[in-house]
């Protein structure tokens, strides 16, 4: 196809406008396509949790039973979850002289 060697100003402006619309349109369409593909992937593959890297086929965070082997209700807040569970309150200091009121010893064994 034969074209003129030089474009007029208005022709050039129209060409740039057309190029911009194509560029923007392509970007918008690509983003939409990526989003749609991601949504589809999430819907069809629930994925794995971090714990599954370990071979724990059920997530550790959800695996702890809610009852003890003896059937008693147990507190599981500290034995589940992805991090160590801090106590409700930090320990408080007790005078060492009140030895008769001590209830137990925590030490290595």
């Amino acid at each position, binding site marked *: 196809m034969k074209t003129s060697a030089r474009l007029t100003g208005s022709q050039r402006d129209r060409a740039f406008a057309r190029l911009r619309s194509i560029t923007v349109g392509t970007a918008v369409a690509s983003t939409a396509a990526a989003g749609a593909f991601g949504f589809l992937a999430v819907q069809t593959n629930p994925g794995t949790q971090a714990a599954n890297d370990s071979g724990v086929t059920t997530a550790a965070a959800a695996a702890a039973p809610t009852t003890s082997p003896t059937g008693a209700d147990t507190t599981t807040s500290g034995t589940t979850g992805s991090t160590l569970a801090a106590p409700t309150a930090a320990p408080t200091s007790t005078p060492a002289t009140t030895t008769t009121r001590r209830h137990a010893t*925590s030490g290595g064994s």
Partner: protein
Amino acid sequence: MVRAETFEALGCDVRVVAADGDVAVARREVGRLLDEVDRTYSRFRPDSELARINARPNETVAVSALLSRVLDASLRAAWVTEGLVDPTVGRQMRLIGYDDDFARIRGRTDAIVLRLEAVAGWRTVRFDADRQTVRVPRGVELDLGSVGKALAADLAAVTAMNAMGGGGVLVSVGGDISVAGDPPAGGWNVLIADDSRAPVDAEGETVAIHDGGIATSSTMVRRWTRGGVELHHIIDPRTGLPAAALWQTVSATAATCVDANTAATAAVVMGAGAPDWLAERRIPARLVAGDGEVVRVAGWPLPMEAVPA
């Protein structure tokens, strides 16, 4: 009224303390639970469920509810400590000579060969909590002793509490302590020591806790010598050998005894980075270095005598 009973189980001293409840009932329930624990996951009983699983490598084996529970807790401990507390150290425990009740291994003096070799690691264990099955690869042996003892304390405290029907209870299994129910006025006063066998009226720092658990890991107990080499029972999974003891004793409190024990044991293995690691997790802890220096983090209190007037 606070009453206490003590007895032996799982190769260590057990203490049951009841506040405004029947301590005999609490002691009976704790004893029954610890019997079940011993039958289920003792490493030293050839007839335990754990021993049978260790003897069946590469097989998917159905496990009881209690073993499922302790496996879950042990693998979670490994997960949250990035493998510093790892249940696959059973073989290494055996190789360093800890292959029987501690009272029996102390008398041995013959040399053993120590190998610098990382453990296979907790990621090699295939555990399905829903189906209650586990598969352990060949060459791997599980040792659930560390987390297992703490879990026993947690389960025992709640079981005893429910049996009493009210009041409060403290259960100490070899110094791993869990409390449930209403504490006595001022809380549960606990002596902090290197050795859990220290009597409650011994000299030492005392703290009060109101809920959850407290545990201490120490390289100062369960030490033995083989071929002139002194060993202890806290394995560094990265080397397969007893952990380098920057911290000789670490005590920690948490929402459960399992988490307190996990934190304390991980800190011993971790070494220099432990104070920051504990502080980031808001785990109150007391770390005693080899030279006796004491480091307190995340709200662990100064001893009363050291508090300025």
